[in-house]
């Protein structure tokens, strides 16, 4: 049994230590908001936060998660979808099929955690998620809009 802290809750999981965090979240904990897209750290669909930083959970084995690590998934990003990134995403109606969007939203939220005012160059470097439907143009707009918001939805 491995102890984890996920979305603020202490949980215990029974999985092989080599299991990627992605599959622990999806199959042991039922948190299917975190998506499988490639399994090789290429697409970003599986992005979650470990202690505030974005990681691609398909490439993190359970053994690499430390005791004190706080894991946050899309389900735990906010109450009632009121994180500034979610508010911006709703305002611009960004998701198309939506499958890449939990990872996209988590990647952007993770960036804003350490860089609250990213430039377009910062965005290009850090947000490298794939979206096959092609929401990228709106994602960029969404990031700039999210910068201006607080979780109350008012301009910051």
């Amino acid at each position, binding site marked *: 049994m491995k102890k984890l802290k996920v979305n603020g809750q202490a949980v215990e999981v029974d999985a*092989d230590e080599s*299991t*990627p965090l992605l*599959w622990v979240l*999806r*199959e*042991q904990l*039922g*948190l*299917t*908001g*975190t*998506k*499988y*897209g*490639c*399994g*090789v750290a*290429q*697409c970003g*669909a599986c992005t979650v936060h470990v202690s505030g930083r974005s990681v691609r959970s398909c490439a993190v084995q359970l053994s690499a998660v430390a005791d004190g690590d706080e894991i946050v*998934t*899309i*389900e735990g*990003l*906010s109450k009632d*979808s009121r994180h500034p990134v*979610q508010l911006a*995403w*709703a305002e611009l*109606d*960004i*998701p*198309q*099929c*939506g*499958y*890449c*969007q*939990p990872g996209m*939203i988590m990647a952007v939220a993770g960036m804003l955690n350490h860089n609250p005012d990213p430039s377009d160059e910062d*965005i*290009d*470097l850090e*947000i*490298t*998620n*794939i*979206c*096959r*439907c*092609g*929401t*990228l*143009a*709106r*994602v*960029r707009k969404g990031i700039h809009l999210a910068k201006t918001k607080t979780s109350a939805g008012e301009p910051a």
Partner: protein
Amino acid sequence: MNQMTSLSRRGFMIGVGVGVAGAGLTISFLGGFGPALAQDAGTAPEVNAWVHIGRDDVVTIRIARSEMGQGTLTGLAQLVAEELQCDWSKVVTEYPTPGQNLARDNVWGEMLTGGSRGIRNSHQYVREGGAAARIMLIEAAAARWKVPASECTAKDSVITHGPTGRTVTYGAVAEDAAKLAPPMEVPLKDPSTWTIAGKPVKRLDTADKLNGAQIYGADMKLDGMLNASIKACPVRGGKLKSFDQAAVMKMPGVRKVLAVHDDAVAVVADTWWQANSALEALPIEWQGGTPYNSADFEAQLEEGLRAREAFVGNRQGDVEAAFAKAAKVVEATYRVPHQNHACMEPMNATVVWTKDSCKAWVPTQDGMSALASVAEAAELPVEKCEVYKLHLGGGFGRRGSSSGDHVSQAVKIAMSMPGTPVKLLWSREEDMQHGFYHPTSRALIRGALDAEGNLTGLHIRIAGQSILAALRPEALKDGLDMVTMQGLAPADLAPGMETQALKYTFPNLLVDHAMRNPPVRPGFWRGVCANQNAIYLDCALDEFAHAAGRDKLEFRLAYMKDCPELQAVLKAAAEKSGWGKKDGVHRGLSAFYSFGSYTAACAEVTVDDDGKLKITRIVAATDPGMAVNPQQIEAQVEGSFVYGLSAMLLQEVTFKSGEVQERNFDTYNSMRLEHMPLVETIVMPSGGFWGGVGEPTIAVAAPAVLNAIFAATGKRVRHLPIKDQNLREL
């Protein structure tokens, strides 16, 4: 209107009656699958097939097509709600099941979602469905008040009796309305009076896509469900020879290892990760198949460009005479590779099989053909099978009607464990290796110019693979695959091709296709053949204009003189971009008509000294005739550039000894934000026709950028994808 459509490879035929009458049959929906349900336990019957209204005034609109990102769910609901005159804030949607469609004599019509047809082929009858429901609700209220229905009006789900001012909500009269006979006459509103349709309303499916609540097929969970991963023979046509199941049976969670059909092996385990880990460790031997090499096939395509025989798709005037008289002949050869859909959500299906029923949960673009695939694989009558559709994590044609391979596999696996639900999820590697690939082709384009620089003759010879020959040979027309002519066809080539017609006018024209089919499974891929046909035509026009020393906008407009709509979108895009300005910006143009819509783009690029490309801005214009949701049209136009430019920049599937070489996104890449230009979209619906939206703009994406690259470098990219070609050293 009645048309016959073939449901399945088993060959039974089903009449698609697209009337509005939903006879008063109450159905209990989707037994067992909760989240999508809005019907209150059968107590409040539907008003008709399209509309159910609860006592709480919640309006459930039934959507027969599939939502895969393209926004059709919202657009169709807008059309129904517009005629229904209901309160938009109380609208929810649900998918009727294919089994119910069958049982109710196809009351929901076609379920296929492809070819950008979701709205343009069903707007009439879904609006009639909404209007009929409104008329019945008003009649029910009038009967209750004992007043003439003509004295009552409806707005925002409230019916008002004009003379007395009495009001009643839809929810209060819905049950009475359901008992009435559907109206004989169902007049529709004039679109100029629309208040819900035609407006940039928010999508209905966004909220659950922001917080992880949306359940896709890959997320399905049923009580007692097991998980499966599968490997099919990596060489097309090859078979499974043997596997050593003892080697993995003791691995954690493994329940079963089994052959599926004669060409695949699957592992079933408690979790998918366990199943896939065991599959990776499983010793497997394959045999046979065709050791096809992409590199070798290039010579066949090249031969096809000069072959004496080819299927003629479009012939106007006398091309050879024009070439004989030409002052100048310009020739160019372009090439596009095989490409994979690479939907973000890998292929999957969840199935429960017993000896007298089979239920499947499938993200599918075509519920009816998924049902046919299920019934066939389950070896059960179709009436004993059911398919529950889920929103798709991308479709792009991969989850269409001829591509139920994964569904059939999932059923076969579930049959080996009667009563146990099994979810089959393909790994990304499986998805990349077993696609229905966008066909490869080449084109030799020859233009005859007279002494004044007029294009007097044009021959486009395409050599390449046919989708229809592989998937629907019965649809070939005297051997010609009409799909290869998308955007280049005469309007009367075949029924339906008027929405794929060439809108340029050339005095002497020949477009022909030398069919060369490699042993690769082809498929319909978002935009299909319009994508490369636009590259062939529009890059060639750029080459001709350059050779003639004429302005590229003026040159194009000269050959669209019979098509004001195409002229209008091209002018709009060029003007907004600043075409003709001497500002150092390198611009390229493209305009094309496909899937019933007029599209144009003006791309702006820079190419640095090392030959590295940056696409800075694209101005796009689209005229889809009627615009049901302008903001979603913009989203589709933006997305089309990602899809089309990913293909142009990065994507190629190659085969070596029959095996796909690009097996994940590391080698089969897709555009990232750093590649993404600013997109400015002009939506300019001219009214009077219903064009598609999800695909047509893809056609202009690549040619506009390729032509801009020429403006920047003086070099032509003719071999796609660009990948790491140095644009200054072509």
